[in-house]
């Protein structure tokens, strides 16, 4: 028989379940109860048996908790494979000495099923007994076996669970250990970091309420306090008074554990203000309560100041730039007026001058003036484009003619340099298109002019072709100095010439290409350049266009063909600028036109009321009443429909449009060519529907020197009084003349003005024309500048002559009378 009791591997197996002498467990108790129910006996047990005792893990119906091995009945069940049933113990020989059986009321019936472990060892039993003999049914026995198997399952599961638990706790322990190592590392890193920050940055710590807990040396330095002075103080002592109010919300957020950062203003101990960039980090405990707030700061007072300076500088620079643009625009405009006069007079002189030397000088003046005008126009154009006041026009014009005319404008300069100058317009390029004629000319002039300027020998050529049905392509090719490769990209920038020395050598504003580019782009075109240094450049641009009907019948063509010869046309010029008046006067001298000049709109209307004119030349900017208002009155109030040609200094589309809208017929911008002016005058004065010929009077060009009607009337024909008045005039006017001559020496314009003003009344009384006096007075008033004197000197000379003339008349009159 197999020795079971002391089988070491069985005992080890039993031990592995860790069941012996453990505490009572409900699940086993229930199984014991189930055993008693199944067998219908009072006692049911779950027991485990080692080499010494049978220990009851669970039991019903017995007081014992364990039995020595020798006294057990179950020791006989251990050797059974299946189960051991003893219906009557008194009849079993093995139990003759068993005290549990042999005692009174001992065990009479016994049944036990061995508990077999997974490894096959019997480690205990599920058993039941009764005090009376009995036999169990087959079902009861099978049920008992099921209980035994379930008990074993339970044990196995418990054992397995325990093993898993062990495993898990072992894994956990390992993990915890690892985590602890990591935490220590992080802590170490954090401490290092904090030490580093603490060493390099101003750091301060607060209690959640805002009391200062810690201040490092850097913080002490930026604030000027020592940490002893600060610790325990509320943070508010570092704040400026006006910042205190909105600081409350800030601290509340911190107390809620919210991280805060930003730029703050703080008060130095000495009262000065400093700016810091700071982060406020609330430090939380394990319950997420704020235990302190750590603030790391950076002193950015200098940066802020620098930034403010920068902003201010930028604002100033912007402002200056605007002022500069405005100044340039104004100045260019102001410069154009005198250039206009210079060019006009030069043109006149060129017409009459015969002496070769003087003619050459005059040509030089004209050249220089033209160049100056070109520059000023460049600048003006540029500032117009820059300020956004540019609008491309869309009007029908003869394209091929325009290109040819523009091309020939520069032929002279090309010839002078002895270079080949040619153009080629491909056949399919249309005769007429709709677009901006002036701008196209301007771009071509610019590019051709550049090409000629930078070409010493070889050729400059223009080629115009049709890229597609709605795009023109222009190529301007030269064999000039070329553009260095690294400068091609910036050649279209403003104020840019390939090299600085270029502007010294070749002149120009450096704006031409930029203007051309902007003009091309404003018309939805594109411009580019290819160039090789020393070999030449090829500028190309493309422009979209709209085809237009053939317009050969257009008035422009007609105008040119009309004969420039008409008699007795009366023209009224409304113009305030004396130089321009003189220029016009000079331009009109050799013509058959008669010119009257009004220095402002009011005067113009006055002349218009009293005389009949065929045409008006109207300056726009005039004192008292400007050209717009004057035209409005002529058209709307006086209901006159004679042609009015505006002469403007601003050649903007806006202005032109305004002129036409208000009722003017044409707009001529200064400076203009003599021929253009007279063509216009001729054209418009020959429009039969417009000119009003009915009220024409014969012009008396003579102005009265002495007319005594007034004096006669006022003195009621008192000859003696008239004579005394005339004598007084002579005495006074001679005195006035002397006064004025003295004032001229002293450059005292105001004194002259006063004298002239008072002379006006005297002239009125003796019936002498006072236009000259008015002209002088208004010039002085308008110019408001001592430098006016040289300008009005010719007028003053005329006045002195006039006074002498009057006094001659007076002495003649008086001698006749006496």
């Amino acid at each position, binding site marked *: 028989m197999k020795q079971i009791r002391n089988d070491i591997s069985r005992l080890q197996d039993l031990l592995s379940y860790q069941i012996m002498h453990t505490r009572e467990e409900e699940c086993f108790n229930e199984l014991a109860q189930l055993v008693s129910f199944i067998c219908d006996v009072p006692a049911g047990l779950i027991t485990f048996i080692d080499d010494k005792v049978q220990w009851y893990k669970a039991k019903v119906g017995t007081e014992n908790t364990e039995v020595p091995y020798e006294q057990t009945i179950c020791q006989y069940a251990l050797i059974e494979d299946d189960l051991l049933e003893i219906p009557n113990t008194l009849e079993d020989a093995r139990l003759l000495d068993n005290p549990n059986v042999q005692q009174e009321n001992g065990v009479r019936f016994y049944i036990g099923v061995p508990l077999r472990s997974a490894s096959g060892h019997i480690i205990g039993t599920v058993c039941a007994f009764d005090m009376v003999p009995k036999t169990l049914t087959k079902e009861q026995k099978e049920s008992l076996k099921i209980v035994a198997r379930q008990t074993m399952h339970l044990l196995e599961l418990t054992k397995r669970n325990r093993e898993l638990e062990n495993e898990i706790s072992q894994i956990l322990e390992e993990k915890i250990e690892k985590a602890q190592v990591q935490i220590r590392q992080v802590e170490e890193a954090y401490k290092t970091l904090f030490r580093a920050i603490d060493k390099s940055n101003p750091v301060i710590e607060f209690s959640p309420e805002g009391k200062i807990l810690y201040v490092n040396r850097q913080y002490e330095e930026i604030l000027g306090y020592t940490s002893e002075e600060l610790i325990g103080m509320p943070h508010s002592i570092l704040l400026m008074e006006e910042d205190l109010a909105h600081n409350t919300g800030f601290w509340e957020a911190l107390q809620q554990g919210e991280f805060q950062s930003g730029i703050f203003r703080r008060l130095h101990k000495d009262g000065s203000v400093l700016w810091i960039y700071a982060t406020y980090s609330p430090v939380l405990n394990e319950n997420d309560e704020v235990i302190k707030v750590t603030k790391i700061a950076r002193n950015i007072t200098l940066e802020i100041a620098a930034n403010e300076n920068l902003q201010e500088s930028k604002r100033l620079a912007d402002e200056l730039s605007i002022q500069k643009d405005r100044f340039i625009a104004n100045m260019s405009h102001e410069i154009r007026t005198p250039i206009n006069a210079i060019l006009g007079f030069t043109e006149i002189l060129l017409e009459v001058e015969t002496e070769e030397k003087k003619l050459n000088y005059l040509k030089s003046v004209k050249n220089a003036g033209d160049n100056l005008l070109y520059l000023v126009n460049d600048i003006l154009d540029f500032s117009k484009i820059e300020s956004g006041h540019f609008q491309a026009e869309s009007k029908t014009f003869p394209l091929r003619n325009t290109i040819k005319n523009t091309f020939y404008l520069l032929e002279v300069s090309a010839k002078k340099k002895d270079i080949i100058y040619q153009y080629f317009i491909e056949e399919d390029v249309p005769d007429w298109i709709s677009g901006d004629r002036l701008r196209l000319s301007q771009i071509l002039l610019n590019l051709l002019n550049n090409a000629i300027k930078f070409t010493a020998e070889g050729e400059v050529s223009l080629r115009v072709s049709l890229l597609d049905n709605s795009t023109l392509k222009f190529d301007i090719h030269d064999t000039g100095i070329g553009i260095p490769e690294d400068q091609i990209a910036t050649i279209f920038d403003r104020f840019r010439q390939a090299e600085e020395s270029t502007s010294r050598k070749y002149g120009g504003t450096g704006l031409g290409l930029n203007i051309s580019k902007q003009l091309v782009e404003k018309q939805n075109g594109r411009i580019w350049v290819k160039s090789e240094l020393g070999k030449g450049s090829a500028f190309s641009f493309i422009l979209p266009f709209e085809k237009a009907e053939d317009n050969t019948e257009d008035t422009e063509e007609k105008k040119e063909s009309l004969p420039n010869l008409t008699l007795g046309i009366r023209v009224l010029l409304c113009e305030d600028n004396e130089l321009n008046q003189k220029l016009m006067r000079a331009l009109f001298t050799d013509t058959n036109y008669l010119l009257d000049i009004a220095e402002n709109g009011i*005067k113009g209307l006055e002349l218009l009321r009293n005389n009949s004119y065929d045409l008006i030349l109207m300056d726009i900017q005039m004192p008292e009443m400007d050209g717009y208002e004057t035209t409005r009155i002529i058209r709307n109030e006086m209901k006159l429909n004679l042609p009015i040609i505006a002469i403007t200094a601003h050649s903007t589309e806006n202005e032109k449009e305004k002129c036409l809208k208000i009722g003017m017929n044409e707009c001529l911008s200064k400076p203009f060519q003599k021929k253009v002016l007279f063509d216009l005058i001729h054209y418009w004065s020959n429009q039969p529907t417009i000119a009003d010929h009915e009220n024409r009077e014969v012009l008396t060009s003579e102005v009265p020197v002495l007319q005594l009607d007034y004096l006669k*009337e*006022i*003195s009621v024909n008192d000859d003696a*009084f008239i004579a005394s008045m005339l004598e007084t005039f002579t005495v006074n006017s001679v005195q006035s003349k002397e006064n004025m001559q003295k004032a001229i020496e002293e450059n005292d314009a105001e004194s002259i003005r006063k004298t002239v003003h008072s002379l*006006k*009344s*005297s002239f009125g*009384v003796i019936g002498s024309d006072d236009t000259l006096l008015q002209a002088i007075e208004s010039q002085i008033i308008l110019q408001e500048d001592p430098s006016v004197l040289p300008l009005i000197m010719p007028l003053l000379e005329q006045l002195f002559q006039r006074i002498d003339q009057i006094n001659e008349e007076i002495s003649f009159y008086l001698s006749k009378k006496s």
Partner: protein
Amino acid sequence: MKKIVLIEDEEILRKSLAHFLTSKSYLVLEFDNGLDAISYIEKEYPSIDLVITDLFLPFKGGHQVVQACKEIEGAQMPVMVLTASGVEETELDLLNMGADDFITKPFSPSVLLKRIEKLMA
């Protein structure tokens, strides 16, 4: 005889006007500056029937004359201003100043007479 104070610095015009008005049976007192005229008017205003003044005068100008006349309590004589066209005050400005009438130089003596008669009526 109605008394007219005439203030005009330009001798010929003043004398002509004075001559003309005297011939029309007015008593004319001539002044060639504003200051003297004002001190005379302030003393003698009850006897004055009309003041005619130029605008630009030595010492005190036409503006001050008009102002002085209008500030004298009880003075009722009208003030007429002689203006030169073009560069001086407009009609409206003059009337705002308190002038009762104005006439632009050069003017016809008969028109002036009509205006004077109307003002003093």
